[in-house]
């Protein structure tokens, strides 16, 4: 941002500015305030609009919403899905973004074109074939399970590597990072395989229906996998990484670092705003996902997320506006907290992408 000079001098245009901003801010806020007010009213007040502000703020509505169905279970489901999809999206998209920004390789232009095309594909196109795929009609579920395992293993490798190399840097010790990572990975995959083969020994933790799944309906991974790869995130990361000076990489190379070391020890610490921005974005996208959970979580033992839970709530409490609003507050609140934590970096780094 170049307009950093905050001036105390009052300009004639400032009245207009305050008017515009005040109106816009007010209009942005009204639905939230209205939602909060309604969530505390009783049925009579909400339907007849006898008051603007509830006489006594009823927390019963929140209890109704929370107790409805299994809202706490929906919350756990949402957290699991959001956590893993955000983590996966940030890790893999950051790596891909780095490759597009700073590594010359064959086929880069074509891959980038692919990326730009992906930006244009509407979800309405994807939803039918993807649903068919996860029902196992196109190819076997086994392939998708292998894909899941590969992804988990890759993510585990990278995390192990990052932790070990940061540890080595901080303590200034010579650690055989790659061998240790390899050992850790083998142990990890072994554990997973073990869990898959002798799952009964793990009791209820990894039961037969959890792994390896026969169908992907009603599972967590079906909600996580499709949103990990995101062209927009890759693109955003590329825009950030492309701004880092090339001299950094040249210096690191002289020190004998490879791309992964450079990425973990230099690029990541320098790009905290990028990571927090895309992290929050991925969090919000995942939290908001709606059509796909409705479609895939059906029948017995569905793993509803909060958004879908809110829909069920609105269906069953169709006239009970306060309960609906209380449910909406429950869905909105965590996102507002996440946003409030990263708000400054968020608006600024999004802005950077628009002009580049």
């Amino acid at each position, binding site marked *: 941002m170049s307009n950093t000079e905050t*001036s105390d001098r009052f300009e004639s245009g400032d009245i207009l*500015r305050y008017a515009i*901003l005040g109106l*816009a*801010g007010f*209009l*942005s806020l009204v*639905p939230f305030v*209205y939602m909060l007010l309604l969530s505390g009213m009783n049925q009579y007040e909400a*339907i007849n*609009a006898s008051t603007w502000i509830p006489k006594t703020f009823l927390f019963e509505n929140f209890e109704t919403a929370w107790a409805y169905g299994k809202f706490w279970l929906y919350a756990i489901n949402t957290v699991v899905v959001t956590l893993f999809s955000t983590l996966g999206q940030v890790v*893999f998209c950051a*790596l*891909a*973004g780095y*490759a*597009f920004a700073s590594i*010359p*390789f064959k086929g*880069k232009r074509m891959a980038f074109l*692919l990326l730009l095309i992906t*930006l*244009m594909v*509407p979800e*309405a*196109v*994807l*939803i*039918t*074939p993807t*649903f*068919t795929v996860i029902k196992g*009609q196109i190819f076997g579920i086994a392939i998708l399970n292998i*894909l899941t395992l590969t992804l988990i293993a890759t993510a585990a490798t990278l995390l192990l590597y990052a932790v070990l190399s940061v540890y080595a840097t901080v303590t200034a010790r010579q650690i055989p990072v790659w061998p240790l990572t390899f050992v850790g990975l083998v142990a990890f995959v072994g554990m997973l395989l073990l869990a898959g083969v002798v799952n009964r020994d793990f009791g209820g933790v990894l039961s037969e229906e959890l792994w390896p799944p026969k169908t992907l309906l009603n599972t967590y991974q079906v909600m996580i996998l*499709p949103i990990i*790869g995101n*062209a927009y995130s*890759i693109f955003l990361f590329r825009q950030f990484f492309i701004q880092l000076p090339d001299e950094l990489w040249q210096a690191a190379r002289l020190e004998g670092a*490879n*791309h992964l070391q450079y990425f973990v020890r230099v690029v990541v610490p320098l790009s905290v705003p990028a990571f927090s921005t895309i992290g929050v974005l991925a969090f919000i996208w995942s939290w*908001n996902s709606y*059509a796909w959970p409705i*479609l895939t979580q059906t029948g017995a033992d569905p793993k509803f997320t909060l*958004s879908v839970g809110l*829909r069920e709530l*609105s*269906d069953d409490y169709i006239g009970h*506006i306060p309960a609906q609003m209380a449910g909406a*507050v429950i*869905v*909105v609140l965590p*996102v*507002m907290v996440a946003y409030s934590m990263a708000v*400054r970096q968020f*608006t600024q780094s*999004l*802005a950077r992408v*628009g*002009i*580049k």
Partner: protein
Amino acid sequence: MSLVERVFGRHAVGWWFAGPGLLMLVTWQIAPIIIAGFMSVHRWKPIRDRYLGLQHYTDLLGEWGPGILFFVCLSLLIAGVWLFGQPAKALSERFRRWLIAVILMIGGGASLWARNFLLDAIALFPTLTEKREIRDFKRSTFENWRGEEVEQMTLVAGSANQFGLYAALFFVAAALVALLPWGRLPRWCNRLAGAAIVLLASVALALAWQRMLIAGSNDFLASLINTLFYSVGTVFTQIMIGLIIAFGLYRRIRGDGLFRYLIFLPYITPAVAMATVFSVIFRERSSGLMNRILDIFGVEPMKWLSNETPIMQAWFGLEWAGLAGGPTIGLITVIFFGVWSYAGYNAVILLAGLTSIPKDLYEAAEIDGASRWQAFTKITLPLLSPVIFFLALTGLIGTFQAFNHTFVMFEQTGGRNESLVVASIFVFQELRSGDFGAAASMGVLLFFLILLITAAQFILAGRRLNSDL
């Protein structure tokens, strides 16, 4: 050379980095398009059945002719507008000449084709009563027609016949003239050819659309129109409002951090929850917030979301249907939500564009005696156009796939207000009804439409685009 490079070769590093992310993209976003193509040519209800060929597409678009004509005319329209705006020097002479000739030839073919369709449509008129879906169409269009009007129609048919023929002849002649070894073609040739093509393509587009309505799936085409209204309405309004807010945020004033926080808030809040809130705000009872506000101004309470009155009828009393009638009040309520949630995002990105314009340009303009309005139109808008282009492009793509809030609001009307069914909701419902093949074919059609729109935007405005995008 690092270990990875030594083992796998020089280019492997990049692929190792980009691989996992790209793999996820390919498996979940590229491959499904191909699978969708495969599914759309099969009967797939809900498991794979026999090969159907292109029947799903003909069910949607009616016949092949109008469907193809529709897409050809859209492309022609884009080409015409593009040609109209081309400066004479932009292209090599020979290329330009051939281009004009080819486009004119296509225009001639299209006008012949359109003439045939018009004649067919008129020939079809007496038999319209036979097909059930057609009856509604007939009722709306031909309801008041009596015998003498049918005679008039025959007259119209005759003149259309001649007009189409002459138009085709004109086009062929013009194409030949354009190919003759003249000197440099002046710019008005571009303009003339462009304008003629735009005109004829529009007429042919309208005719093709009518034909598609007769024989194709009315619900799907109506959902396309709703999507168009929603997209254009939302994107246009949110960029305008975003520009105003960006102006407000441009100078750093006291408390702008708070305003920025508030204005950006709608963008990040879960659409499902806020759409529920919006449908409570816009509920049809007089106790809804919006109706109470209207009451303050002495306006009668309205039905909002569940209102199926087209805007032309609500405002001007014109009982037009379809594209001419404009969006319904219910759809406008959904547009309100779209604008509410995206205006802040647009403002933040436009603000970044505004601040990147060097200040001395304005100072120079001021010295030269330019007014504020002139400074805005001559400096701000041209320099801001890449940002606006970016927002319009991503906005159109985004609104074309808008699902969450539209679906919530549609369900809040009890699923009764059909004018809220945008294309993505339509596909979703088709999918849930178990007809996977039809849903896939709709998806593929949507994909082609978006490709066309994106290409149009790039062709018409893309040369101003920053090459870095």
